[in-house]
């Protein structure tokens, strides 16, 4: 049998993306980012579903061209159907349904979080199942157990802010630019993580909370008047960044180590945009060496929102015979189970 050629489409938030995976190997990966980084401490997303509408056809055409294939070569069309913004999801999903129907090929609905879980299968060493997956990004902070047969168990998730969001908001408090993750990471490398002990919130089970940490940075800065704060930041901005980052990293890595000990699973993937954080990587590698588990971190391009992970998840679902009816609807609040 010919190896399956899967087109993946992703439009759950800011980016319109398409990718082609043939026989499980990535052939193309196109992302049209609608983001414009501005100097006011946040993304300026042209969040319009109208922008997705404008971009979806050229992005898919480019993904097919780069992969060196035509529509007729496609085995199935995989698409994100949730969670995300209703209007944005609908553009990708409606396009995928029409495209699959027109070609007479099956549709495969993919949960955006499934994409993050399987992003570790795009390139490089792939973990055997079962494995633990920590998904850390601007929108998500979840620890999952991934087993054979597309079985996913949620072990814990954030009860308030996502880890990436905490980075962005603390970067803003420190007068740093956007996005906050890379800026704090860079600064933290020259700072002293022991400068100040910000609180590590440890909850029952594997749940996370980063809201209290963000607030404690704010309260710490608020102890000073305007001039005092400016002087403090001038002298200790890197130290505060390092202390904050250390608190986030400690909380994440502690949960992973506990999950490894509790489940006996020796393979751990860290995915999502925050997995690029050098402090997190170093701490996770140290924990892996000490506790004897194997760590998998995909290249950054597959950690940001992308369609390669949707196509790969689609490939895995296709092999398991999990196609979706054309009546599939967008589910903005879709959970992963």
């Amino acid at each position: 049998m010919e190896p399956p050629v899967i087109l993946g489409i992703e439009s759950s938030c800011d980016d319109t993306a398409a990718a082609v995976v043939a026989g499980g190997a990535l052939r193309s990966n196109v992302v049209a980012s609608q983001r414009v980084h501005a100097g006011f401490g946040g993304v300026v997303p042209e969040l319009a579903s109208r922008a997705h509408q404008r971009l979806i056809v050229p992005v898919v055409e480019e993904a097919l061209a780069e992969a060196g294939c035509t529509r007729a070569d496609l085995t199935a069309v995989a698409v994100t159907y949730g969670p995300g913004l209703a209007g944005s999801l609908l553009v990708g999903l409606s396009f995928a349904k029409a495209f699959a129907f027109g070609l007479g090929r099956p549709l495969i609905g993919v949960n955006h979080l499934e994409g993050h879980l399987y992003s570790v299968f795009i390139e490089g060493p792939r973990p055997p199942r079962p494995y633990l997956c920590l998904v850390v990004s601007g929108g998500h902070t979840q620890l999952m157990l991934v087993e054979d047969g597309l079985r996913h168990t949620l072990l814990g998730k954030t009860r308030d802010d996502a880890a990436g969001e905490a980075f962005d908001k603390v970067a803003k408090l420190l007068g740093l630019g956007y996005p906050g993750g890379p800026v704090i990471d860079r600064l933290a490398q020259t700072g002293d993580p022991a400068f100040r002990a910000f609180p590590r919130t440890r909850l029952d089970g594997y749940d996370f909370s980063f809201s209290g940490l963000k607030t404690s940075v704010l309260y710490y800065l608020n102890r000073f008047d305007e001039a005092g704060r400016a002087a403090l930041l001038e002298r200790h901005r890197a130290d505060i960044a390092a202390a904050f980052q250390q608190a986030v990293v400690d909380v994440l890595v502690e949960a992973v180590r506990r999950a490894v000990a509790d489940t006996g699973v020796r393979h751990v993937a860290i995915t999502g945009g925050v997995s690029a954080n050098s402090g997190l990587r170093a701490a996770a590698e140290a924990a892996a060496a000490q506790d004897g588990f194997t760590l998998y971190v995909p290249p950054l391009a597959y950690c940001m929102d992308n369609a390669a992970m949707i196509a790969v998840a689609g490939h895995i679902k296709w092999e398991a015979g999990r196609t979706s009816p054309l009546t599939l609807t967008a589910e903005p609040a879709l959970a992963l189970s």
Partner: protein
Amino acid sequence: MTLQREEDAARDRTSAVFSRPRETASEAETQAVGAELAPRLSPGDVVALYGDLGAGKTQLVKGICAALGVDPTLVSSPTFTIVQEYTGRTGPLYHIDAYRIADPAEFFELGYEEYFYGEGLCFVEWPERVEALLPPHTLRLRLTHAGGDRRRIEPMAPPR
């Protein structure tokens, strides 16, 4: 109803929903204030929550949603996702965060009327970013840091 009348009505509704300022000293207490507000809100209401980083906006929404039958662990900050939808006893609940929205036009493009003029109950964090799009019947609450771990929650008049 004229715009002026609608705004007056919104002010009266705000007083009915939230007549006196509250002070809270923990996340749990902020959530308890939310639980107290919940039965006074109806589908179609838009609740705008003004307040700085860490002022307790998400915790207040968590308290309201939990009292309306939503699993509180599902309620988290929608900063990145912009809109999170939950299903409560009274119908859909839209938890909106305009922090990342630079221009109200972006929220317009997002199909804001589906949320603000729909069947659901809306909560809006960072509403100042979409002020021009908030409907006249918007209920406004302000959350402020009140020293130490304390936060103050009070009704607020529409900005002029």
